[in-house]
């Protein structure tokens, strides 16, 4: 009940505004760019095994992005979305969770899926829309999903996963599971109605969900100062009565620490948390746009200096958990593996024509079945026009 606001608010007798920026929100930083730790910083729970896995995932992420942007330029795949410069947000998020936690991502969080162990082949098969794609070749590249790995299939409409995460986490809590849902979105998607709906639903119904905003400065070409004028996205968490945390999104240790803390709170208290990770999208929005049309090289160069992967590498070197020989070998192997996987996946057949009508419903209704029979007859009549499927019609 919030009716106490009437009787418990401080009373004034002159009309005066409170300022729209009056909530001061600090930013958590643990790791410096040179690999050293800030004085008095509280470290996340991280040992050599977790650190190594996290670093290798970051490396895989960067190599896959680099190679697949090139593959798109060569016309081998239709589309790609890289996460250059903000890989720590998704990889660190997964590193701070447990495997049973659900990940509901926007579309630039392939790093979390990599951390969970989605194979290179699975990534490739999705991007090449072939018959081995778990999504049956139905969605554009990067719309991954895996039930086994608790990674909800990506949906293009922005922000729709936010109220869904509130519901998913409510179900986890009702079942008494030791599990939470993390919900990723960008600062642009936070303008959608679903953001406000989802945060309020989660706060009111006490869903154990970690809302994780990647504030990377741009929604396609629109800079964040044309997206909102308040104190970032974090101030809204306060407005919805939610525990809120702002972090340096390029600081992998800050990301892991924040998510570990949020997870512990969400499970124990059964309530949501909002994390705003400040970062920068160093690459294009997707392979369909060119950032030189809407921002300067100088701005990009400034953010190059905050590279989250180099920052973690510096820390790993300082810890004695990594060396340059390992670095060279890892990146060489990753590049070779990705190139080899491209060559395999691009030759795998398209999905069978039956996949046109499956999964619309649990069973295809009679009208859809009859449309399918008509289609098969049509393809048989004009087989040259439908080369992927004509030879496989039963």
């Amino acid at each position, binding site marked *: 009940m919030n009716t106490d606001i009437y009787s418990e608010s401080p009373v004034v007798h002159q009309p005066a505004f409170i300022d729209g920026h009056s909530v001061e929100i600090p930013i958590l930083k643990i790791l410096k760019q040179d690999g050293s730790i800030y004085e008095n910083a509280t470290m996340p729970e991280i040992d050599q095994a977790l650190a190594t896995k996290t670093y290798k995932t970051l490396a895989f992420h960067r190599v896959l992005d680099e190679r697949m942007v090139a593959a798109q330029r060569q016309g081998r795949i239709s589309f790609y979305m890289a996460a250059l410069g903000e890989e720590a947000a998704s990889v660190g998020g997964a590193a701070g969770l447990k495997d049973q936690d659900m990940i509901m991502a926007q579309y630039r969080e392939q790093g979390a899926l990599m951390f969970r162990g989605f194979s290179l082949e699975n990534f490739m098969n999705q991007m090449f829309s072939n018959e081995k794609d778990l999504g049956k070749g*139905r969605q554009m590249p990067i719309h991954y*999903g895996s039930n086994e790995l608790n990674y909800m299939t990506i949906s293009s409409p922005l922000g729709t996963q936010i109220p869904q995460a509130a*519901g*998913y986490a409510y*179900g986890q809590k*009702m079942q008494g599971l030791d599990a939470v849902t993390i919900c990723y979105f960008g600062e642009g998607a936070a303008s959608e109605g679903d953001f406000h709906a989802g945060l309020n639903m989660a706060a009111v119904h006490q869903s154990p969900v970690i809302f994780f905003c990647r504030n990377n400065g741009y929604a396609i070409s629109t800079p964040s100062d044309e997206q909102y004028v308040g104190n970032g996205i974090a101030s809204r968490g306060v407005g919805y009565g939610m525990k809120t945390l702002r972090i340096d999104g390029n600081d992998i240790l800050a990301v892991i620490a924040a998510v570990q803390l949020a997870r512990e709170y969400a499970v124990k208290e059964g309530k949501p948390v909002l994390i705003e990770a400040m970062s920068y999208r160093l690459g294009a929005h997707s392979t369909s746009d060119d950032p030189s049309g809407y921002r300067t090289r100088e701005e990009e160069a400034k953010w190059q200096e905050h590279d989250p992967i180099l920052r973690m590498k510096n820390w790993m070197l300082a810890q004695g958990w990594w060396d340059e020989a390992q670095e060279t070998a890892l990146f060489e192997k990753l590049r070779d593996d990705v190139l080899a996987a491209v060559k395999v996946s691009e030759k795998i057949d398209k999905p069978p024509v039956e996949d046109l009508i499956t999964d619309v419903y649990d069973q295809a209704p009679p*009208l859809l079945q009859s449309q399918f029979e008509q289609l098969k007859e049509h393809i048989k009549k004009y087989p040259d026009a439908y080369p992927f499927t004509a030879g496989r019609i039963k």
Partner: protein
Amino acid sequence: MAQMNLLQAINNALDTVMAENDRAVCFGEDVGHFGGVFRATSGLQEKYGKNRCFNTPLVEQGVIGFANGLAAQGSTPIAEIQFADYIFPAFDQIVNESAKFRYRSGNEFDVGKLTIRTPYGGGIAGGLYHSQSPEAYFAHTPGLKLVVPRNPYQAKGLLLASIRDDNPVIFFEPKRLYRASVGEVPEEDYQLPLGKAEVVQQGSDITLLAWGAQMEIVEKAAELASADGISCEIIDLRTILPWDIETVANSVMKTGRFVVSQEAPLTAGFASEIAATIQQECFLHLEAPIARVCGMDTPYPLALEKEYVADHLKIYEAIKNSMTY
């Protein structure tokens, strides 16, 4: 058997499901302690607790987004949208999310356990925003099932089937009949099939098709026609998506004449889809053009509601025109 009105039949179905399935959850605006503005969820919070029957904030896209997430998680959400007129803020969650969840993931995930209940239709002096019949918007979306009951017996059996069906279902409740329609309803569990129309009256001269609250209007028109010696076959479509072409086409092939009636405006309504399919299936059997008797192509009126609606007299005229074509 017990005498129940349509609301009581719905409440009874919800009670049945919540008793058997502890992951069934009912929620929506004012759905909790108050039991919904029409009282369809009356007593459920007292019986099953606040975690399983609760009020939500006033945000339809949030209600359905939350429901989609719960269904994907494996719970059985039964979400109420207070009036079908207010379902549109949730249009994206229904059309882009609920309907495509299974397909887009290659069956890795689905929201088959989702049911959306919403009162629809006119006749309650509700004006523009408490009277609409928006089924056609959703009928254009593969992946959804749309169900409309005509009386308390149908309401319980179809709602139980909708909740247990492994696809997202929008269950449109004819609010004009909530208390007006009373009938015998078994207290035990039963289901009526989805995707199956029902021939409610056999006849030989003309086929009349409708669904939901429009059924009793059609039945009234058929009585007038009967006095003129016209034998009407009356069919309740019951499920709008996916619809039972076979039952309707078989009837029209027998009678050779066809009138379809809906509350919603004429243009691009579901009656138009039915008319197109039936002329294709029954072309050589038709003795007269197919007639659609529908609401006019205006927003739903208030003072002039009586003139606007597809009433029994307009249907009666359509029957006579067809017979004398």
